[in-house]
């Protein structure tokens, strides 16, 4: 430990701590902009590019960036001396001098970290005038928009994309005033290895990276009296939506979510959870088939479109490894436009399926050309949790006073196994609950597989199912997925099944969720919320869902039947590695 003094107060800090860490111990707030430490997700952006956290260190001529200056014994630091305050304001004014002042119409308005910083430092005037960057916005991606005029070069997106996700789509390019964050050879983002996970959007302090805005299209759809509108909500949405309305993180708002969607005018309010249960039927059946008939093992989950695109780029030699199951979003869409349309006597051409997702990659997935049913898109429109917040506000709905609504039947019913699809490890846990009972014919008494839960990047477990020891692994974050996949490629992997989610911690940390602004405790609470939803359900095994049973009895036939295969399974394509 090292003893130093900050603003005259003595503090002890570990040797590898920074001045910023030590100041936090004393509850001294040093403003930052580029710095981001998501320790439980193993993401640390220590670029020290913005110079907002400059402090005075006795004996040093120049000011030092607190975020990257290590503590030293006897160090005397001043965090808010007149000299520091003057320099810090100067730095922020310089950043603002090359930033569009269009906050009122910016998608990040009220959520922007640069805006908050300017407010915190009471900046009312910008002394500096100079050249402004003029980059053309990149709107090529179906999921996200890059507007580099709003970039502050914090490099968080780069750290996320390259070090955490190992997608390697973004890098700082050019130099001096022309420096920007861009793609190799400046190609449009849609032509890169970007998987639309949206983690860059989740950590961008400004609106340099934001999601494709589908709100106008949704209002248009809801105003179209010709259309029969069906909405589905992903499990992770209910765990985070309340935060945006000031409710404490970790409070699931399932009932209010349903009521809000009904007020918005959807004809039916359904749950992606139903399709999650359905996914387990097909995936567990596929897994057991591979086990019994010597098929390709391990099986990899295929619910996450970011992950699917990642392996199509990076592991295109292993396209036979993932499950062929469509994701729950698309299983829902296809069942809605076939089974449900028939049941309700509605022309599928008049039906519009809208998804509310925690995810940006779902926007991309909905546009994949093979995911169509009888020439119709399986999913017509995807909005994120964040977009839903704005739609609810648009509609003047007082969210917090809404009563708890109930999902419609039949595509609104689900078991606890579906709720945990939103957290890392949950899909595999749900699959194990069902596989166990199907393989042994016995009842699984203890349904909780604790070893698969939590934020660790890679988790593994060995589960006794009858005579067989099933070895499973779970990875979240694509860098961790890459490690597991490399062991599959080299043949070292002894796993039977692997679950992958692109976002660290799973969909609760999806690129479309309310911004966590670096507070990872929020994510832990969202995880807890979904675990509680699961525990609160009477039925916690997907195959016990009575509406799933009747879906098979009335329509699909057996698990993995020909019809099930035609509707619920898909294939993958080889994509360029760079």
């Amino acid at each position, binding site marked *: 430990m090292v003893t130093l003094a900050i603003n005259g107060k003595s503090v002890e800090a570990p040797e590898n701590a920074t001045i910023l860490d030590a100041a936090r111990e004393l509850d001294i707030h040093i403003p930052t902009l580029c710095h981001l430490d998501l320790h439980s997700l193993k993401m640390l952006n220590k670029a020290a590019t913005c110079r907002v956290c400059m402090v005075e260190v006795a004996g040093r001529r120049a000011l030092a960036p607190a975020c990257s200056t290590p503590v030293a014994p006897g160090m005397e630091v001043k965090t808010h001396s007149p000299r520091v305050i003057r320099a810090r304001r100067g730095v922020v004014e310089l950043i603002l001098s090359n930033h569009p002042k269009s906050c009122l119409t910016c998608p990040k308005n009220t959520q922007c970290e640069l805006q908050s910083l300017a407010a915190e430092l009471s900046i009312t005037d910008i002394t500096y005038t100079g050249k402004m960057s003029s980059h053309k916005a990149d709107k090529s991606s179906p999921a996200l928009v890059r507007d580099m005029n709003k970039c502050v070069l914090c490099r968080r997106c780069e750290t996320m994309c390259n070090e955490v996700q190992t997608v*390697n789509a973004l890098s700082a390019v*050019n130099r001096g005033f022309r420096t920007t964050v861009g*793609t*190799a*050879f400046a190609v449009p983002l849609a032509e890169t290895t970007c998987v639309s996970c949206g983690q860059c959007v989740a950590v961008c302090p400004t609106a340099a990276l934001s999601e494709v805005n589908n709100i106008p299209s949704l209002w248009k759809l809801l105003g179209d009296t010709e259309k029969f509108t069906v909405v589905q909500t992903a499990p992770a949405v209910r765990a985070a939506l309340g935060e945006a309305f000031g409710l404490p993180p970790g409070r699931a708002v399932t009932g209010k979510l349903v009521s809000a969607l009904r007020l918005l005018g959807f004809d039916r309010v359904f749950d992606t959870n139903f399709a999650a249960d359905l996914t387990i039927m097909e995936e567990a059946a596929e897994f057991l088939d591979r086990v019994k008939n010597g098929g390709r093992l391990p099986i990899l989950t295929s619910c996450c479109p970011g992950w699917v695109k990642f392996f199509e780029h990076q592991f295109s030699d292993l396209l036979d490894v993932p499950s062929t199951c469509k994701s729950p979003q698309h299983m829902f869409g296809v069942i809605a436009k076939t089974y449900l349309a028939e049941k309700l006597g509605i022309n599928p051409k008049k039906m519009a399926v809208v998804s509310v997702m925690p995810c940006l990659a779902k926007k991309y997935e909905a546009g994949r050309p093979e995911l169509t049913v009888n020439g119709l898109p399986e999913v017509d429109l995807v909005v994120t949790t964040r977009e839903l917040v704005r739609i609810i506000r648009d509609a003047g709905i007082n969210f917090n006073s809404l009563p708890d609504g109930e999902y419609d039947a039949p595509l609104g019913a689900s078991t606890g196994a579906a709720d945990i699809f939103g957290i890392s490890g949950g899909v595999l846990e749900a699959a194990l609950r069902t596989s166990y009972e199907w393989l042994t014919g016995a009842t699984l008494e203890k349904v909780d597989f604790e070893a698969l839960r939590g934020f660790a990047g890679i988790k593994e477990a060995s589960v006794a199912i009858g005579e067989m020891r099933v070895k499973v692994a779970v990875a979240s974050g694509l860098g961790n997925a890459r490690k597991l996949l490399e062991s599959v490629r080299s043949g070292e992997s002894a796993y039977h099944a692997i679950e992958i989610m692109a976002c660290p911690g799973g969909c609760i940390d999806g690129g479309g969720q309310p911004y966590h602004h670096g507070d990872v405790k929020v994510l832990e609470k969202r995880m807890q919320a979904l675990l509680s939803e699961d525990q609160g359900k009477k039925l916690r095994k997907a195959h016990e869902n009575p509406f799933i049973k009747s879906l098979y009895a009335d329509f699909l036939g057996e698990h993995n039947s020909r019809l099930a295969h035609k509707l619920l399974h898909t294939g993958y394509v080889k994509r360029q590695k760079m």
Partner: protein
Amino acid sequence: MPQSPQGEDCKKLAAFLDSSIDSSGRNESALIKTLYEAQRIFGYLPKEAVFLISERLNVAVSKVYGVISFYSFFTTKPKGRYQVKVCLGTACFVRGAEKIARELESRLGIKLGETSLDRKFSLESLRCVGACGLAPVTLVNGKGYGRLEVKDIGPMLEQYTDGKS
């Protein structure tokens, strides 16, 4: 587009990578050296070369491009077979290099920094080749021409019209 011997060049680059990487360790520190060699082989840094380097050095292609875009020496634009470089350093400048540059531009039909459509000539400026006594100086594929006057430019370029260097 004229046929370029890119396949041959890729083989040369691969051979260079084979001979150099394993000794220095496959890592980022070999990047600039490798890019330099690749640009020597190809005359510029085409995508194929950059992808190959990225893969073999295990450095993300976006990062490699970041480095290329940082250094003005590296270029991803194809260069002509004859690279004409006119010195605009102080000594050359005061002895009329500006006029030489303009004459080159008008005779080649391209501006400084450009390459002719048939990829025969590219024209660039540089700052001092260390031969100020010969100012103004122009290099064509490394060969120096000194004490140039505007009237010398035509005959100088004529030497490079028949496809020989």
